[in-house]
């Protein structure tokens, strides 16, 4: 088990390195750097001025060197600029170059500097993640029990009318991407057109003070898309369990139907959905980006859009690290959890 986890952790680190290198490479392509220089300086910069700016700020070093510096395995650059000023990667914010550390990369806990927000990337990500964490907490609270209840109700009597109607509902919810359901919810519940203006159409206020009125629609929008999928998986696993021998034995013993479902079937039926719920995280991340943009909730997803559309290299890298970490950790947890929940599986 330990060697399995260690191997998975090794693959995780390797994946994260490859992924960040790809992001690093794509964001450091010359047209992207040119755009960055022009947004930082001004839009009518000449080609020479762009090159000077990039050279002075260390962007024109070879790609592996830059990546090593960002990672913290190579010493940060110290460049004598063409304007006579010395610039060092590790001496941000007017610090004396002599006092600055030699290495300052992600390994030293330095997330870099966001060129859009003009702030430390690490602290931006921390705040934004906190806001998104709040959103995700409520999403999970709504989505997981809802999906499990729907799936179990549909799966305990396969082919019944309850099953068919609940299955249709879950297909409908998987077929509704967040930008469709969000728009429909805002139109119906956020405006006065249908006489049901019960909620706020934006969640900006929910960042400081979340309440039912301004936070329910975004939570519902994200939860709905994932709910259908989990419910269908739960239903499939429940119908399989309900045809098992031990359920038939319980029936023949004369155990009440509710007891069969709650005591005999439910625990075995919940193994598969656990994996699915964990693997839903990457998709939820997408939903978060769309919903935060739609409802103008300035969380992690919103930050991703801002960083990506402005080629904010270090912030974007930070965002990628966090999302890759989330994706890979949930995969790991789902694998380990599966083994714990299902005693028939052994990992050597």
């Amino acid at each position: 088990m330990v060697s399995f986890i260690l191997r998975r952790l090794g693959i995780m680190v390797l994946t994260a390195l490859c992924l960040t290198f790809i992001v690093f490479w794509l964001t450091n392509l010359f047209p992207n750097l040119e755009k960055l220089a022009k947004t930082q300086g001004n839009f009518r910069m000449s080609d020479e001025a762009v090159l000077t700016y990039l050279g002075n700020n260390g962007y024109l070093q070879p790609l592996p060197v830059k990546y090593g510096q960002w990672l913290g395995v190579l010493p940060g650059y110290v460049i004598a600029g063409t304007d006579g000023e010395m610039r060092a990667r590790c001496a941000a914010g007017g610090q004396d170059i002599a006092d600055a550390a030699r290495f300052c990369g992600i390994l030293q806990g330095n997330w870099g500097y966001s060129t859009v927000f003009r702030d430390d990337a690490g602290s931006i990500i921390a705040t934004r993640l906190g806001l998104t964490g709040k959103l995700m907490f409520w999403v999970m609270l709504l989505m997981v029990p809802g999906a499990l209840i729907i799936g179990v109700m549909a799966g305990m009597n396969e082919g019944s009318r309850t099953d068919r109607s609940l299955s249709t509902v879950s297909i409908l919810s998987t077929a509704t991407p967040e930008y469709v359901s969000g728009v429909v919810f805002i139109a119906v519940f956020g405006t006065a057109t249908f006489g049901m203006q019960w909620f706020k159409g934006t969640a900006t206020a929910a960042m400081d003070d979340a309440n039912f009125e301004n936070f329910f629609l975004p939570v519902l929008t994200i939860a709905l898309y994932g709910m259908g999928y989990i419910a269908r998986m739960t239903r499939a696993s429940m119908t399989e369990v309900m045809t098992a021998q031990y359920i038939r034995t319980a029936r023949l013993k004369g155990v009440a139907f509710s007891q069969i479902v709650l005591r005999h079937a439910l625990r075995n039926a919940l193994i598969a959905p656990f994996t699915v719920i964990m693997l839903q995280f990457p998709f939820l991340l997408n939903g978060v980006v769309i919903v935060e943009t739609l409802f103008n909730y300035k969380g992690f997803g919103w930050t991703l859009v801002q960083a990506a559309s402005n080629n904010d290299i270090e912030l974007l890298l930070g965002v990628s690290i966090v999302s890759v970490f989330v994706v890979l950790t949930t995969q790991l947890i789902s694998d380990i959890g599966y083994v714990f929940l299902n005693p028939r599986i052994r990992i050597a």
Partner: protein
Amino acid sequence: MDPLTWTGGLGAFLNPALAITAALCGIVLVVQTGLRMGSAAVTLQSNPDGTLQGRGGVLGALDTALIYLVWALVALLLAYIVVPLVMPYGSAGILGEITRRLLPVWIALVATFALSIRFKRRLGLYGKLFDSTVGMIGFVLVMFWVYVAAFVGVFDMIVTHDYLSQVSGLKNALPGVMVPDGTQGVIPHYLLGGDNLARDIFSRVMAGSVFVIAIAPLATIFAFMVGITLGLPAGYYGGKFDTALSFAANLILAFPVILLFYLLVTPEIVQTGIPSYMAAFLFAFPLIFIGVLINTRYYTQPAKRNAIILPVLGILGWLYLSAINASGTVIDFLPAWADLFDISVLVVFVSVVFVNAPTVFRIVRGLTLDLRTRDYVAAAQTRGEGAWYIMLWEILPNARGPLIVDFCLRIGYTTILLGTLGFFGLGLSSESPDWGTTINEGRKLLLIYIHPALPPAMALLSLVLGLNLLADGLREESLKD
């Protein structure tokens, strides 16, 4: 002429009738559910004389009533479509005019269904689809949009105004608004109102279907070609090759899709030519796939093989070169006469294929891992068949069930991805009538005007729902074998 109302003269009778039927349906359902809580779940009763009888009593009566009520509901909804066809212009309201514009689609749908149901026993899996209600509903929704796209894209029917032309004074105009004289299209109204740039929303939504119907299935086919060509050997051989490919697939899947889109579909990246190289790489897979497919089938008859493979690969190769070659990009070597077409949305197409291919790869690999242990594979190996023959002609046909189902689901997912791209304004011009872009345009003023954003949202929802229901129906029917 006056602005149109939603249902016009038609609504005077149909609206109350519909409301009453729907309400009765609801009441019966609630009463039935309430009654069933306390009674046993009996569907058949055996009589003392040995005969069987359908559920009697109040519950049985309610069952029968519910069936009649649902049929009445369906008939009323059909009346909304059929009756306006014989009413004069404008008297059946917005809904009536929309169904009248869609007349070619209704005719095509009825013809498709009549033919398919008539010959369903001879049509294999497709024919079996018509045994499942869910599958049929899904098929109606999908074919509706396929026909709309065909009639709009090929014959320029259905749309009422040019989807780009702006008419002054109709900015954010409400549905059914009159168009001023001189600027009329086919009809003198904006059926679903005007958008923020005073363009006809109905025409834009209908024209937007062409983009989705053309791109989504094609991109899915390409993703499948890539996934199958790489997944079969990965699953069949295993080993280092499999480990490397699986790692690459998991790497792509670990990216949040939107981040990947932002990294691939920006004007700066297009400038570097990365999408063109990716297109050259990804578009080669269909060629490889079809070449190997033909070769493994006919390699014992070289003359026949050459007669088939050369023209096929010649035509496909030309198509391939024209697809990746575009003037003004990094891949620009064909003379103008040889370049058959330019794909204006190449970046979008490539990134959607790129995102979908790893998932298909994983599915195909998993299926191959399972199927390669079967007896017919061992038999083929004993006969001395080549590895690729076994993969393509023994394993792949036996994996078709799950792959067809996933193909339907994946077209739906691709539709969602295309909408996501439009929603973030990536890769598509802001004038494009595709649904994602129109939803994005509409949502900016959503709290003031809701009518520009809802029609494209509903269109996208109905298409994806149709594809999912279709996949569900196919799964159900293919499991019955």
